[in-house]
Structure formats: C-alpha cells, structure tokens
C-alpha cells in the first residue's frame, strides 16, 4: 500500500544522522521532525533566522516574535541560536546545512526540480527554495509520486519553470525511494506492498528498477 504523508516523513527520517543540521520545507518535510530517533541529536534550521528549532509552544508559551519559515509559532531548544536572514542564507548558500528536505511539483531524471510556479496561476514566489536547492549538498525531495490527475511527477524533463538545475539526488514518494544518477531514477526501496510493476507504470522518467528491489522498513 502506498505511504501516506506520515509514512513518507518517517522514511525520510531514516536518512538523518547524529549531529545533522537540517532544513525542512513546508508541508510533508515539516513532519520529518516528528520522527527524529530518540538517541540522535538533529538541529533544525528555519531560514527566517533560527537554528535549534523546538516543537510548537504550549498555549501559555506562544510568542509572536518566534516563528518558523511557515509562519507557525515555535520554540527554541537548549543550544539554539537566532540570527538575521542574511546570516541564515550564508549558512545555506555556504553549504553548512547537512540536509535539506523539500516538496516538489516535478522532478526530472537529470535532477532538475520545479516547485514554485505554474504558468497561468497566481505566482506567490519562490521564498527560500531556489537558494536551498542551489546550495545544499544533500537534498531530498518529499512528494506524492503522481499529481491529482494521476500523472507522474518523476519526469524525463520538467515542464514547469525550474527552481534549480540538476540538484536533486534523492526522492522519496508514497511509492518508493529513488536515487537520481546517470540521467535516471534508480529505485532503491519500494513502499510496503507496492509492486515494482506499479512504480514502473507511474514513473514517466527513465527508471532503473530491479524486480527484487527490497521493501522499505518502517518501525
């Protein structure tokens, strides 16, 4: 059975390592924070100027001056730091963030990503997404495998305006985990109960998948 958004987040959490500095985008990526292993120290960066982001506040601890990049009220953990937006993107652009997780509308087999603009629709802006994809050493896209019309979001090339060029190395969807290399999506793991056949049918881009691809393990 395909993963729900929590399953995708849970699988991505397996990519975390102790001591990682991580930027989680809005949507599914934010959920990854709920699955950080207990024995691991991971520092969450919010690009509006916070490193060491904690959980949502309790009602009495809500502080309008402390929000994340999704404009949600948050808290700080011991060892957190606060800084300006310029400093925040020094961290990002300078390659100091170990892992970035973000959503996408389309990912291409060459690593291109499109996630900010749909021609003909009101464009709200790229926010920090273009900086993040241009700079991070290690980017994972978290998204549904197909769009609402059932069309594949893993494509030979992006049809939407690009956010970044050749920057995505890994994609986790509701159907599986994919590594992007040599101009193809390489299936690493299937979602529980999802067949390689289904993944083949729903992937428009070049796919390299072996029939004995292992099923992912979620705790």
């Amino acid at each position, binding site marked *: 059975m395909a993963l729900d958004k929590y399953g995708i987040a849970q699988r991505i959490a397996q990519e975390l390592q102790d001591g990682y500095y991580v930027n989680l985008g809005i949507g599914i990526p934010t959920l990854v924070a709920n699955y950080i292993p207990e024995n691991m120290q991971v520092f969450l960066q*919010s*690009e*509006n*100027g*916070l490193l060491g982001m904690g*959980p*949502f*506040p*309790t*009602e*009495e601890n*809500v*502080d*309008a*001056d*402390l*929000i*994340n*990049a*999704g*404009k*949600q*009220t*948050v808290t700080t953990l011991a060892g957190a730091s*606060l*800084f*300006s*937006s*310029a400093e*925040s*993107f020094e961290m*990002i*652009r300078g390659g100091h963030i170990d892992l970035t997780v973000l959503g996408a509308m389309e990912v291409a087999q060459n690593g291109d990503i499109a996630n900010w*603009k749909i021609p003909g629709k*009101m*464009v*709200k*802006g*790229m*926010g*920090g*997404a*273009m*900086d993040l994809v*241009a*700079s991070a050493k290690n980017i994972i896209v978290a998204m549904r495998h197909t769009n609402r019309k059932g069309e594949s979001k893993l494509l030979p090339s992006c049809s939407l*305006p*690009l*956010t*970044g*060029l050749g920057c995505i190395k890994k994609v986790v969807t509701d159907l599986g985990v994919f590594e992007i290399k040599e101009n193809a999506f390489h299936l690493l793991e299937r979602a529980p109960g999802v067949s390689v056949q289904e993944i083949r049918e729903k992937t428009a881009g070049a796919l390299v998948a072996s029939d004995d691809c292992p099923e992912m393990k979620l705790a």
Partner: protein
Amino acid sequence: MNKVVANAQEAIQGIEDNMTLMLGGFGLCGIPENAISALVQAGMKNLTCISNNAGVDDFGIGLMLQQRQVKKMISSYVGENAEFERQLLSGELEVDLVPQGTLAERIRAGGAGIPAFYTPTGYGTEVAEGKECREFDGRMYVMEMALSADFALVKAWKGDKHGNLVFKGTARNFNPMMAKAGKITVVEVEQLLEPGELHPNEIHVPGVYVQRIFQGVDYEKRIEQRTVRQA
C-alpha cells in the same frame, strides 16, 4: 546630536510619492507596525516597497495595498492576501520576485558598499534571465546587484538613543540588513533606552546606521499561524 523623534508621524517626514522603501519583517513577524500606520495615514502613492512579504489583507503592507499606495513590490513570497492578487492580476501592481537568500544578500550588499556579487541561486531558471552568468571553479553563478532605498523602516526590540539595536527572536529577519541599506533609516522600538544600557557586546546593529529612532506604541504583533501543543 539627537536621533530621537516623538512618534511615527515625525519619523516618516520626508517620505514622498515615488520613493523606494525597505520594510523589515518576515510574514507579520518583526514588521514596523507604527511606521506602516503612519504611511497609511499620510497617504503617499506610487511607492516601491522592498519587503520579504506583502502582509495580509488587513495588516502589515496589506494596509498600504488597500489604499493603493504601492506601485511595485520586491519580495520573495507574496499573495497571502486577496487584494494583492486582485491588483496584480489587474495590472495595478508590479511584482519583482527575488529568491529569499538573494534578496537578503542584495540588501546586505547595498549597505556594505558592494555593488554586485555572484550567487549560485537561480542559475538556469527564470530568475537568471537577462543577468550575467559565469563560471567559477567549475560551477555556474548569477551576478546580482545591490539594493538600497530612500528610507528603511525597521522594527527592533530594544534600541538606545544613539541608535544601537537589539532584536528579539525571529523578529530580527530582514531588519538588520535593511537598517544598513536605507539612505535614511527609521527605527521603531519596544524599549527606548539610554546610551550605555545595552552592553556593547550584545548589540546587533550599531547606531551608525540609524538616523531616527522612536518609541513605538500599541504593538499588535499579529500571529499568522498560531500552532500550539498540549502542555
């Protein structure tokens, strides 16, 4: 030498139609609420506003949009409000969308005497169209230009009468760079202090960048996404 002014009305003296303004804040966090109210009251038109966002329908820069005071927005993310969308689609409002990190760095450059710099952000996308791109050490970069403004409107937590500033939480965001990039920088603070009350080592923005400072009043500090957990 006196940088202290009585209130927002006095602080915005000299802002005229067609000027370029920078306004601090990320979403509604750390925005210069008092200065925005005074601008709405004063009613100048055709302003170009550099601000990461454009407020919501009835708060922040949204209030200026309602009065049709804004000709152009330079932002990284907009459209949390319906009036903005209406003006944009009808062609009344121009928008220049800039990646958030590039926006922050262009403002920083404006204050720092750096006319242009190279960034990897946006290479190969629409953002790089018409811009000079070049290779350094095997990677491609886009040349981006500094931004400055006639007036920068900044919100700080504490400030002393010499203009030294300290921010609180994530209300810092774009405020420090904008304080440095305004030809005239106007700061509103929650606590106006005497020189010496802030320790020299804890100051986020030195007073040299600040021309006017005033004690703000009646901060609403509206929250866009009030998210809480059970205690």
